């Protein structure tokens, strides 16, 4: 008995000593929210010794707008302009997913042409997002020429979006039942010529960045996610494919027009920073091919099956989970309807939720300070879809 109390005492003292220790070896280092090296408005609190990180703690929530709460308060149609604002760099997947979820619940048929147009929009958005990604990643490594080029090229895509939907970023183009309006005249032609330009441009990017020896030196073997780790952390999307697992929702469980399209699932084997960038770079070319096929195969017909009574539109009771492959990973919506005119619950499953918190913390541990923001950018974390 006496022994036990003594043991307890000593333990307590030990704890006290630990907390009251005079020397703190590490220092605390904040990356974000106000830091050039952060993707969006996000925070990572780091404990570091020298320039080596011993503990990382992601601190999201700066972009919290309570979308899921707001959507419960609005009618199904009112939610359409809201959903696209969830993920800023890639808003179209949200529209597509929301429409797909409502369509699945209500059973509205989508015209074939609308499916193709949606796919075109999604793929264009993917190209734009990848261009954004290339620029961002290069900028974290200190190469500011590539962002200047690639953001400029991204603007061509945004111009096409503007022609198609009237807006650059938030398109509000896809509606349950189809898309808002048909393609403008000569749109496919313009798109085709843009694709040819991009094909040339990606070669230029190769020269300055992707094939550069310094880029390889800087990125190979940094932030490795091996196969087991990728599965353990439920990694999805290009980050998973960079670890050597050929899994693409577009191929695996095809949606929209993807069943008719031929394309390869791109994989790399290393799972490091370099492979993550290269997977996206190679997918960029693959996407151009997909878009070309889509333009070729585009059917004619109606684009919008209008739904009945927009203001009193009751969706059948039920729940459905829909998902698409976004540039960041698996993007999913879980819509629960209780039969009223407002959704009971819409849960948004952003890909960054898995990549941006646990995986990031795990990857940053033991890294150098110089590699923090490159790793963060290479995972393509989109803070708005964590916070929502």
């Amino acid at each position, binding site marked *: 008995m006496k022994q036990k109390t003594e043991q307890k005492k000593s333990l307590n003292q030990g704890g006290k000593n630990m907390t009251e220790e005079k020397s703190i070896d590490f220092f605390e280092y904040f990356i974000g929210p106000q830091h050039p090296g952060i993707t969006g408005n996000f925070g990572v609190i780091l404990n570091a010794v020298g320039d080596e990180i011993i503990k990382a703690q992601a601190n999201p929530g700066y972009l919290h707008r309570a979308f899921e709460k707001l959507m419960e308060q609005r009618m199904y149609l009112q939610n359409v302009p809201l959903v696209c604002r969830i993920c800023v760099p890639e808003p179209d997947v949200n529209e597509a997913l929301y429409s797909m979820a409502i369509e699945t619940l209500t059973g509205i048929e989508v015209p074939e042409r609308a499916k193709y147009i949606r796919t075109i929009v999604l793929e264009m958005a993917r190209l734009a997002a990848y261009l954004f990604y290339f620029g961002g990643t290069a900028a974290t490594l200190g190469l500011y020429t590539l962002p*200047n080029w690639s953001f*400029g090229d991204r603007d061509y895509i945004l111009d096409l979006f503007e022609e198609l939907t009237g807006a650059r970023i938030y398109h509000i183009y896809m509606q349950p039942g189809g898309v808002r309006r048909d393609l403008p005249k000569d749109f496919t032609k313009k798109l085709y010529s843009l694709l040819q330009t991009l094909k040339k441009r990606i070669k230029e990017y190769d020269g300055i960045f992707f094939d550069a020896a310094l880029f390889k030196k800087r990125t190979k073997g940094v932030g490795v996610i091996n196969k087991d780790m990728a599965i353990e952390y439920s990694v999805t999307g290009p980050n998973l494919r960079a670890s050597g697992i050929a899994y693409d929702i577009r191929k695996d469980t095809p949606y929209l027009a993807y069943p008719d399209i031929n394309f390869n699932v791109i994989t790399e084997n290393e799972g490091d920073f370099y492979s993550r960038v290269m997977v996206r770079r190679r997918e960029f070319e693959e996407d151009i091919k997909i878009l070309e096929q889509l333009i070729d195969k585009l059917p004619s017909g109606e684009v919008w099956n209008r739904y009945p009574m927009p203001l009193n539109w009751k969706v059948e009771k039920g729940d459905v989970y829909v998902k698409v492959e976004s540039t960041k990973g698996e993007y999913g919506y879980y819509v629960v309807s209780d039969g009223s005119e407002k959704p009971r619950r819409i849960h948004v499953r952003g890909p960054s939720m898995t990549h941006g918190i646990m995986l990031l913390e795990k990857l940053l541990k033991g890294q150098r*300070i110089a590699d923090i923001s490159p790793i963060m950018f290479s995972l393509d974390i989109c803070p708005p879809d964590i916070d929502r």
Partner: protein
Amino acid sequence: MNINILYAALAPIVAILLGLLYIGIGRKIIARLQRRYGPPFYQQYIDTIKLLAKKTVSSHGVFFSLGPIMGLAGSMVTLLFIPFGSAAPLLSFHGDIILVMYLVVIAPLGMALGVGEGSNPNGSIGMARGLTLMLAYEVPFVLALFSVVLYTHTTSIAQIVQSQAGEWSLLKFHGFNWLTFALPISAIVADICLQGMLGEKPFDQVIAPHEIASGPMVEYGGKYLGMMVINHALHIYIETALFVDIFLGGGPVWFFIPATFSVFILSLIINGVLPRFRIGQALKFYWGVPLILAVIGIIYTMVVIK
């Protein structure tokens, strides 16, 4: 003598104006490389004046304020020992290349003190990186200078400039006395080291905004930052002038200014197309190929002399 004193008073001003102009034009050129229009060439002057016109200053301590001053003073002293081409030797007879190598260090060390008192880890990491970078490039650079000393039998910069003196006129161009042609390998090594001295990519680890939020400048703003910008301009002038004096024979003003400018622009264009090294990689890089090249350069020089 009077002219010399006048020049001594004017030299810093001229150097500052030139340095800022170089940066300004450099920004324009970089913008064109990046398919942009770019700021006007006098933008850097506007920025500097604006910084000096900021109304509030916040300081973390006495040495926080003295750091930039010490940096500026260090750079200005160095300036006086560097010949303005072959035109005015100024104080260069009173000190030689070894003195200049050490005078150049005063500015960063002064700045380091201020940055240290800023009590911000970003600044400290930046300084640690800066000093490491110095460790990296000094060694090959000194070896490159060594071959120059071997070749010219003097450590005095003025005499090195004189040894390359040819006939300078618009019609007759004798660039063949340049040490660049006599010692090509050492000149290449020195130019590689210049990239690190100027802190251009791939060696801009010191300020790396995405990593350590502009490093040493992290706590400096307003007027202090204005002083640091001026110091940077001086620094650019000093480093390029040193290179031109030693390897391109100094030359009269009409040659000297374009030469320093083109040396700067060369490193700026390299800066435009490269990402940055990790600091450890920078050390490895400099102690790899450039060091070997420098040794080869010295052996070559020894062969040439014999």
